[in-house]
C-alpha cells in the first residue's frame, strides 16, 4: 500500500494506483480518507493480528500506521468482495524510497526486520519486504501496509527475502561499498536490483564484506541454479522440515548485516554550504527575518523548501507551517539534514532527495503506480532561496519556464535572485559560454509581475542578492 495522495476532489472511493498488487487488501482514497478493503482471508488475518501484542505495541508507538476497522454504519461501499474496511491515518506527504537518503532507507530496513521478528515471535509473518510499505512523519518512519501481515505457516521460509535484498540490502550495500547513491539505484526500477546485477557492480574484494558472499554472490548463483526447477521450493523446504526458528535466525543475521552498513562518501560541497556561502555579515540575518515574517503571516499548510541544502530555512519556517518538505538534490546533504533532524525527533520536516530540474516522475504500471512529486500534494508556499542560478545556469532551464512551473503549483512564493556579480554565479559561469540572456533581474520581475502579486521586496546589503515575497493569484 501507499498512503493517499492529497487529491481530495474524488466523490467516491477511488482505488489507489500503487496498491493493485495485493488483491485481497486494496487501498482506496475517499476524499481525505485512506481506506483498505479486505477480502475474507485478509479480514480473517486482521482479526488475528489486530489482537496480537506486537501489533498493538507497535501501533501505540507509532511504528505502525494508526488503523481502525470501520463499523457497518461508517463503512463506504468500495466494491464487491470486501467484507470489511479499514481506515488508516493519513501520511502528511507521500514519499518514495528513491527520494530517501542512505540513513532513511537503512532506518526503514531495520524497522522492516524488527517488525518481522516481532511478528514471527507471535506466529505471524509479513508476505512483503519492500520499502514502499513505509512512509515518514518528519523523520519518524512508519509501516503502512498492515495488509501484508498474515499468520505464519510452519515450514514456510522468509517469503520476502528476495524483495528485501533487491530493494533494501543491495542499494545500501552498493552505496556502502562503491559509493553509488541508493536513491539513483532505486529510481532505475520499482523491483530494485537483481542479485546478478548487484554481483556485477561489486568488486571481488567487496565479497569480503559481511553478508556480500551469501546474500549477493551465492544468491545470484542459487537463482541461476534453481531458476528452471519444476518443483515448488517452498513445498520442498516445508517437507524437509524448515522451522520458524531457522527463519528467525536468517532475519536476525540480515539485521546484523544491515545494522553495520555505513555510507561511503566523498566530501560533499553542498553539505558544507552553510559554512561556505557568499553572504556578507548581516545579510543572512536579514534574509532569515524576511522569510520568517512572510511565512508567519500566512501559516501555510504545506511548504516546499526547494533546494533546501541542510534545511536551515526549513527549520525557520517549520514552526509557522503545518508540514515542511525539504527538497535537496545532493544525497549526502539530505542524509546530514535527516540525521540532525532525527536526533531532535523532528516530525514536522521531511527531507527528500529531489533534483527539481529532474523531479520524480510517475513510475510503474501505467506510470501511475508511483506518482509524480506534485501529484502527491502541491504546496501552499514554496521557498526558492539561492536556487534560481542553479536551475537556470547549471540546469539550463529558461528562467520564464521555471517561473511558469512555480505558477502552476498555485502557491505563494519566496524567491531569491542572485545577481551576475555574485561570486556563486560567477563560479557557475566560469567554464560556460554565457548564453543566459534570460538570467536577468528584469526578466524575473516581469515574470513574477505577470503571475503573482509581489508583496515585499528586500535587496540585501551585498547588492547582489534580492528577495521577493509573492502572493499567488487567487490567494487571499
Amino acid at each position: 500500500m501507499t498512503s493517499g495522495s492529497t487529491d481530495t476532489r474524488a466523490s467516491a472511493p477511488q482505488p489507489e494506483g500503487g496498491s493493485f498488487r495485493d488483491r485481497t487488501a486494496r487501498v482506496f482514497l475517499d476524499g481525505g480518507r485512506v481506506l483498505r478493503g479486505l477480502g475474507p482471508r485478509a479480514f480473517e488475518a486482521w482479526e488475528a493480528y489486530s489482537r496480537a501484542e506486537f501489533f498493538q505495541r507497535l501501533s501505540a508507538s507509532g511504528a505502525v500506521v494508526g488503523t481502525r476497522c470501520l463499523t457497518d454504519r461508517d463503512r463506504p461501499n468500495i466494491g464487491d468482495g470486501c467484507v470489511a474496511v479499514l481506515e488508516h491515518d493519513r501520511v502528511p506527504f507521500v514519499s518514495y524510497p528513491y527520494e530517501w537518503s542512505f540513513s532513511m532507507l537503512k532506518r526503514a530496513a531495520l524497522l522492516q526486520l524488527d517488525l518481522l521478528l516481532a511478528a514471527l515471535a507471535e506466529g505471524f509473518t509479513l508476505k512483503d519486504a519492500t520499502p514502499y510499505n513505509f512512509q515518514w512523519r518528519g523523520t519518524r518512519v512508519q509501516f503502512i501496509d498492515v495488509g501484508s501481515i498474515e499468520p505464519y505457516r510452519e515450514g514456510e521460509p522468509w517469503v520476502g527475502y528476495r524483495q528485501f535484498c533487491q530493494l533494501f540490502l543491495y542499494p545500501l550495500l552498493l552505496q556502502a561499498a562503491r559509493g553509488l547513491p541508493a536513491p539513483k539505484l532505486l529510481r532505475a526500477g520499482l523491483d530494485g536490483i537483481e542479485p546478478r546485477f548487484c554481483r556485477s557492480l561489486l568488486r571481488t574484494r567487496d565479497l569480503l564484506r559481511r553478508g556480500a558472499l551469501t546474500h549477493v554472490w551465492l544468491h545470484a548463483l542459487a537463482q541461476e541454479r534453481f531458476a528452471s526447477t519444476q518443483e515448488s521450493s517452498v513445498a520442498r523446504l516445508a517437507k524437509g522440515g524448515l522451522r520458524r526458528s531457522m527463519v528467525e535466525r536468517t532475519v536476525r543475521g540480515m539485521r546484523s548485516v544491515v545494522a553495520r552498513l555505513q555510507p561511503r562518501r566523498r566530501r560533499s560541497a553542498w553539505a558544507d554550504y552553510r559554512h561556505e556561502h557568499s553572504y556578507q555579515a548581516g545579510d543572512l540575518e536579514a534574509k532569515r527575518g524576511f522569510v520568517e515574517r512572510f511565512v508567519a503571516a500566512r501559516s501555510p499548510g504545506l511548504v516546499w523548501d526547494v533546494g533546501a541544502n541542510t534545511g536551515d530555512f526549513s527549520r525557520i519556517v517549520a514552526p509557522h507551517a503545518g508540514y515542511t518538505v525539504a527538497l535537496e538534490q545532493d544525497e549526502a546533504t539530505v542524509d546530514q539534514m535527516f540525521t540532525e533532524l532525527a536526533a531532535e525527533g523532528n516530525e514536522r520536516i521531511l527531507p527528500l532527495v529531489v533534483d527539481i530540474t529532474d523531479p520524480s516522475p510517475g513510475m510503474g504500471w501505467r506510470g501511475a503506480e508511483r506518482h509524480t512529486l506534485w501529484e502527491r500534494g502541491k504546496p501552499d508556499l514554496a521557498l526558492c532561496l539561492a536556487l534560481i542560478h542553479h536551475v537556470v545556469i547549471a540546469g539550463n532551464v529558461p528562467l520564464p519556464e521555471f517561473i511558469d512551473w512555480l505558477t502552476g503549483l498555485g502557491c505563494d512564493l519566496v524567491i531569491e535572485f542572485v545577481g551576475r556579480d555574485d561570486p556563486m554565479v560567477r563560479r557557475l559561469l566560469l567554464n560556460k559560454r554565457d548564453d543566459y540572456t534570460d538570467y536577468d533581474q528584469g526578466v524575473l520581475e516581469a515574470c513574477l509581475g505577470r503571475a503573482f502579486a509581489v508583496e515585499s521586496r528586500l535587496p540585501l546589503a551585498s547588492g547582489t542578492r534580492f528577495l521577493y515575497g509573492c502572493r499567488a493569484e487567487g490567494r487571499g
Partner: protein
Amino acid sequence: MDRKMKPFLVATAVALVLAARPAYAYLDPTAGSVMLQLLLGGVAAIAVALKIFWHSILRALHLRTEAEDDER
C-alpha cells in the same frame, strides 16, 4: 556467520558453482532465493538441506518415489 558453518557454506558454494546451469525461459527467480535460505538459517537448516539433497539422490537412483517422500 558461525565458524562451524563456514565449511558447510564453502561446500555448498562449490556445489552450486559445479551445478550452475544455463537459464531457460519461464524461469522462477524466487526458487533460488528460497533454497538459499537453507544456508542462512543455521546448522539446523543445513541439516534440512542435507536431508532434501539426500532424498533427491535417492529419487534420482529410483530408490524412492516422490509419493514415498510425501508419506514420511
